[in-house]
């Protein structure tokens, strides 16, 4: 309902099915793949460690969010590097529902393990920076809250429902970032591990969306408004990219926006081919910095920017050969 253009994409699939046109109607995406083969087989400008270094920034953010919310403390000293940036904001959430706390504690452990795994994997590689970047969990969420129409003082640590909304914001982005990075590390030994982390983030995303869906229309409306805010800070540039992701219309899908089957709740945000959206690094950075400017280098959740080679949107674009 909030994304008429996306809904109509999904409606279109159903209509084509009803008309027996699926094969013909979707032929365009089949065509796209062979057309891009030549470009797709070009060597990568980025190595596995550089991509994992980029991912480590996101994992630090998620891990600090969940550690603070569930346990009231941050990552231990041995996991944040010799010269870590400070973390602003975040505190232990008072959980009212046992299973919600148990879910969030499980996710906290997975994200902790991702940080540890990525650090260990890239520690000996050249040109990586494994210090935790400075992270803001306070002003950033107030900015998100204002953009989403949730008031001036949105605080995801205020209660368990708010904490689920913050988790909703992060997990979907994490999933799309690993998908968007998958073609960068094709053929690399890093690919299998990245696919395994991607799967875990997707399980998290489905878990979080299912809880929100189960909490009723008011909660769903809040999540949908965060989804809209998230979409608003992405640079809307994919339509013109020659080697861009091949789902150019939208990368967001709110929980209540599905309409292939009436009553549908979107626990799995996908394009009309049933594929979860991928985001190239530059779009991920625009969301993390809460700023659609392609030249932005810091802000939002990372007030001093992110660590590693892929550290602002233009470098992200260059890494994919799209600058």
């Amino acid at each position, binding site marked *: 309902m909030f994304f008429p253009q996306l809904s109509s994409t999904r409606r279109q699939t159903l209509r084509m099915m*009803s008309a027996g046109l699926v094969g013909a109607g979707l032929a365009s995406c089949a065509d796209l793949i062979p057309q891009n083969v030549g470009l797709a087989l070009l060597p990568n400008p980025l190595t596995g460690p550089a991509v994992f270094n980029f991912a480590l920034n996101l994992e630090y953010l998620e891990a600090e969010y969940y550690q603070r919310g569930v346990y009231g403390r941050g990552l231990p000293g041995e996991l944040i590097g010799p010269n870590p940036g400070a973390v602003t904001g975040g505190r232990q959430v008072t959980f009212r529902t046992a299973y919600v706390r148990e879910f969030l504690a499980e996710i906290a452990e997975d994200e902790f393990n991702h940080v540890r795994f990525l650090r260990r994997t890239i520690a000996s590689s050249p040109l990586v920076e494994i210090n935790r970047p400075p992270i803001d969990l306070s002003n950033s969420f107030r900015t998100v809250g204002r953009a989403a129409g949730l008031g001036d003082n949105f605080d995801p640590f205020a209660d368990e429902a708010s904490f689920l909304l913050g988790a909703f914001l992060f997990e979907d982005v994490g999933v799309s970032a690993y998908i968007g990075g998958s073609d960068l590390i094709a053929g690399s030994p890093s690919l299998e591990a990245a696919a395994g982390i991607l799967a875990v983030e997707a399980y998290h*995303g489905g878990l979080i969306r299912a809880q929100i*869906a189960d909490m009723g229309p008011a909660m769903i409306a809040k999540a949908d408004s965060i989804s809209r805010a998230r979409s608003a800070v992405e640079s809307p540039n994919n339509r013109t990219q020659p080697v861009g992701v091949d789902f150019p219309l939208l990368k967001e899908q709110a929980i209540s926006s599905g309409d292939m*089957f009436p009553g549908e709740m979107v626990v799995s945000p996908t394009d009309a081919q049933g594929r*979860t959206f991928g985001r190239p690094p530059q779009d991920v950075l625009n969301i993390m910095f809460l700023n659609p400017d392609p030249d932005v280098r810091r802000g939002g959740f990372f007030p001093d920017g992110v660590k590693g080679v892929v550290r602002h949107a233009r470098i992200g674009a260059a890494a994919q050969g799209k600058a």
Partner: protein
Amino acid sequence: MMTQVDSTRRSFLGLDSPGAALATVGAIAVSAAAPMGSAAAAQARNSTDVDILNFALNLEYLETEYYLRGVIGTTADAAFRTSLGGAVRGGRKVAFSRPSHDGLFRNIAGNEVQHVAFLRSVNGTAAIPRPVIDFEAGFAAVAAAAGLPDFDPFANEMNFFLGAMLFEDVGVTAYKGAAKMIRNKRILEAAAGILASEGYHMGAVRSVIYKMGDRARARSIALSNLRDTLDGPQDFDQPVVKIGDKSNVVPANENGIAFGRTPQHVLNIVYGNPAQGILQGGFYPEGVNGRINAS
């Protein structure tokens, strides 16, 4: 803090003694062994991207029919308005207690329809038709082998969640296991997107199983143990359980990484047979279609 959610946890929890299940599985399996045990390995080595997508399409046909029948009360042939291939036996509409349960399955059903349409479209004239699918025999075999005699996924809501878990956890591991075999980057990114979609589904479904409580969790243990018994000596599987003060909804190792399965191990599970070189059985009484078809 560092309580590891890893595969060794299974032993700690005493979950790995499904000896009786193994015996039953052996008995129910349709024995149609390939001539050489190495045939499966050769299939894996020589497979093209088309072969891999066709292999995945077999699983997507199965999932699509499961959800369309159980959630919408229709069939893929009716939805696509054409016959997609082999006959499908079993399945009927399930009643759901909450709008969110019905809503999440409607989303999943839609996604699976899209996966079938997409994979058929990408492979074009090389796309395989739907193999013959038998939910009745397949689930009867699972029920016997898992020690859950009344396990009919279409009989009630809890069982339908568990049947979804049985298939789609495997789908996630199948896409993850195939990722390194895919040569074309565009195909790889598409496969990553489908993998994630299936992961979302299972995160939602398994969280509901967790909330359903002890009986549902115990059944997830039985099904997870069955899968683990069928797919070789390694532990690629985790049930929905509570460990200490945490849930275990997400199947992941000590690095927070999900498991992958080779096509051969996937076929062991859907054929209901732990042996190598098996060509049919379980949910696919005439085997899967395409060049990757032997366990």
